[in-house]
């Protein structure tokens, strides 16, 4: 049984040799290139007197710390110009993702849903993609009387922008996948 003992001792030796506790190297922490940490919906009143912001911020991305959501109060019976800003603030340099969305306008669309339905939000007709369909980064917003409710802002990637009602801001037939969906509390006084 010479062979046997030789074999097993060499196997044991090899095992001991290999099973030293070597550690995996530190992972290279990926630059989360696609992350959107911050959404700001900036509203400027017609008179340019007021600049309001609805802000969503989740610097560490999904999981971890819960996101912060804040909203300024809107004035009743006022017209605002709305502008969306999408930022990645996770790194040292803030990246403006709005540029990316704008450049790929045919593949993106923002939707605005107010509940209860007492604020009118419409797309700015100048902010369209190559096919003449709205992208929705720039909007017009008109308040009525005082109320409290919510505004849900949704960014869809690869929606069917030619589907029925989608160009008018109706999300039902849009499909695609949701890149952003945030519900802001909203108050009009």
């Amino acid at each position: 049984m010479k062979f046997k003992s030789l074999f097993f001792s060499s196997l044991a030796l090899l095992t001991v040799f290999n099973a030293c506790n070597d550690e995996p190297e530190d992972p290279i922490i990926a630059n989360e290139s696609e992350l959107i940490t911050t959404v700001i919906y900036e509203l400027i009143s017609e008179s340019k007197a007021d600049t309001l912001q609805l802000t969503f911020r989740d610097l560490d991305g999904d999981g971890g710390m819960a996101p912060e959501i804040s909203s300024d109060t809107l004035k009743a019976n006022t017209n605002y110009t709305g502008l969306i800003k999408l930022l990645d603030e996770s790194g040292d340099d803030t990246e403006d993702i709005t540029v990316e969305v704008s450049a790929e306008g045919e593949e993106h669309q923002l939707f605005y849903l107010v509940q209860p339905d007492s604020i009118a939000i419409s797309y700015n007709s100048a902010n369209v993609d190559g096919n003449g369909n709205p992208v929705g980064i720039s909007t017009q917003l008109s308040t009525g009387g005082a109320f409290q409710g919510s505004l849900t802002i949704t960014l869809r990637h690869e929606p069917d922008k030619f589907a029925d009602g989608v160009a008018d801001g109706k999300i039902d037939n849009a499909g695609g996948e949701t890149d952003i969906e945030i519900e802001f509390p909203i108050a009009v006084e």
Partner: protein
Amino acid sequence: MQVVKRTSRSSSPLRWNKSLLGSLFFLVSAFAANAQTCDVIVKGIINDEHSEDPIQFANVYLEESRQGAVSDENGSFELEGICPGQYHTVVSHIGCETKRIFLNITSDTTINFELDHGSHLLHEIAIRGHHSEEGSQESHTLDAESINENSEDNLAGILDGIAGVDQIKTGNTISKPVVHGLSGNRLLVLNNGVSQSGQQWGADHAPAIDPLQAGRITVVKGVSAVEYQGASLGGVVLVQPSAIDRDPHLHSDLSYFYQTNGRGHGFHTSTSRYNKILSWKLNTTIKKSGDLKTPNYFLTNTGKEEANASLQLERNFGERVKADVFMSSFNTRLGILRGSHIGNLNDLQEAMIREEPFYTNDSFSYLIQPPSQEVNHHLGKVHVKYILNDSTWFDVNAAVQQNLRKEFDVRRSGRSYTPALSLDMRSAFLEGKFQTQIRQKWLLKSGAQYMRKDNVNAANTGILPLIPDYISDLVGAFTVATYKTDSFAFELGARYDLEDRRVVTISQDLPRRPVRFNDSYHNLNIGAGIHIDLNNSIGWSYNLGFANRNPEVNELYSNGLHQGVSGYEIGDPNLESERSFKQTFNVLVNLNDRLIVEGLGYLQFINDYIYLNPENASILTIRGAFPVFRYRQTDARIYGFDLVATHDLNRYSRLLLKYAHIKGTDLERNVGLVNLPSNKITGRLSFHIPTFFGLENIEFHISDKFVFQQSNIQPWQDFLAVPDAYNLINAELVMEKQWKKRRVKFWVRSNNLANTRYREYLNRLRYFADETGIDVVIGAKMSL
């Protein structure tokens, strides 16, 4: 089919040496007299390998002289007027694997053949006795012929016909086998004796193995895999190449299939040559298919491309040392239904109520776009066998593997072509085993294994990895003792494994930093079994086993969105090992091969069963709210039975009935276990005609499969109600023809003949789309 004394499936080197061909050469050359006239007679008897009964209507054919004979009711055949010379002899019979043997005929010769007449039952009935490595545990083997006839299918799909074996799918191109309800981390898949090392954890991660490279695939519906290293709570899938035929000439098998659904094409070659210096066999497979179709619409982006190759080399160094090398490369690109790639829970709900999925194109396409997967798996293995004497030998195996997995998601700014997940797992394996006879009828098998895995995420994905980087070392040893007589077998075995794993995850909070974990596990497996043949007609066996399975990295450290399932999965670093206790009881009744009934009952308890629990909470992200799924543990019980019966109505027709029943329960909460197969019943009627207008071995099958609704699940355990029961009709026609030196086999098969619309509970894409509609496959195999 097997030739007398050639017990290729036994690992006994002694029997190898005594293989028929060796003795035939001897026998035939001993008669090397003066006969040079064409008056040689070759005769013999063809018997059933198991029952020893004579087999009627078997074909014996000499290719070179185109002489043939058919065996009579006594199994006898006689070929007259043969010129002395070298011949390739083809022996074939309905359902048996056609065998080609090289003979050097110089004078009158008697050759007795034994056919593995049971092999045509192998889909259904376990054949016992010649699979020494599986011992008394229940096993089912598919031979190369049945694998080939199903060449359009992947590994899990081919195994799906076996009672108690199902598949869990992500669409129709990605599927993994399920044995008695367990799959993934709980099912061991061995490719050529080496535990397949890859990303077994995901339901969308199919085993990267080409079944066409295999000579046979065995499913062990066992209690404890004592001999093999790796996580298993009972079931084992063994994919093994066949040994190279001892034929000194160059031979090729070419096969091709076309599939109407998906317009798929596949081409497979197997070329081999036996040589004293170095025998070799080369297998290649190429497959391509496009969008599959349900009865009503195309499944856009469900194409598939595959290119695989394997090379097998064998050489003997004297009488005592045998060496072989096996190298294989598996490469695939798979499209995933475009409409299944969704964002948050609202998207999922919207997708689920749609009649047809988003992004459904009106026209067919071969195009594969994100979401998609690219998987490469490479294996290199060296095996050396040292034979000390007739009953004692040693095996050494050394293997390296590399598994590359890239998953592509639909992303912004051209990043779709940057993988969202990119994993590179490398592993090394070393094994030493020996087998010896310790006393008469007592066999002892013992060995030790070592495996090292190194899993690394590529950094360029731009997404935090779902699975961390880690290095693991697994060391283990086993011993199995077997006592065996003709009608009685007893076996007892145990194995122990130590796993040490170093893991580095990335913190969820800022600033991102590495967080290290070190896990160490002791796993113990014990298995015992007894098998008794009461008489020629009735045999039974009982097995019981205990097994540990330590938690895998996905269960411990997952933390992130699993987009395809719209859930936020959270691992638990404090999970304990699962402990399984399983028993099986099997009865086989065989009444003159006319009526065979086999029943297998099993009962398994798994303590600390790890599962994904839908939590009563959601997590708020920029993409909206996602439900939280957390890995938790409970005590589980799984029981069921597989029942198979075949009845020969007459010489030309056979009826088969198959039923599989399974029920899993979470004992702590008293609810059903999710992702367990539904009960199903299959009936099949087969006709076979030995010869008809020059065609041979004609077989026709028509089968009906009824799958019951999975009724163990509560509505809150899933996003969508479980699908309804469904019924599928399949039909198949197989025939062979000998053209001079070429033997050609044809087959036509139709799956879902009635074009039934249905959804299957174990297909994750059932939330989005129907299953595929009618499919017709035509295939041919030519032996050169």
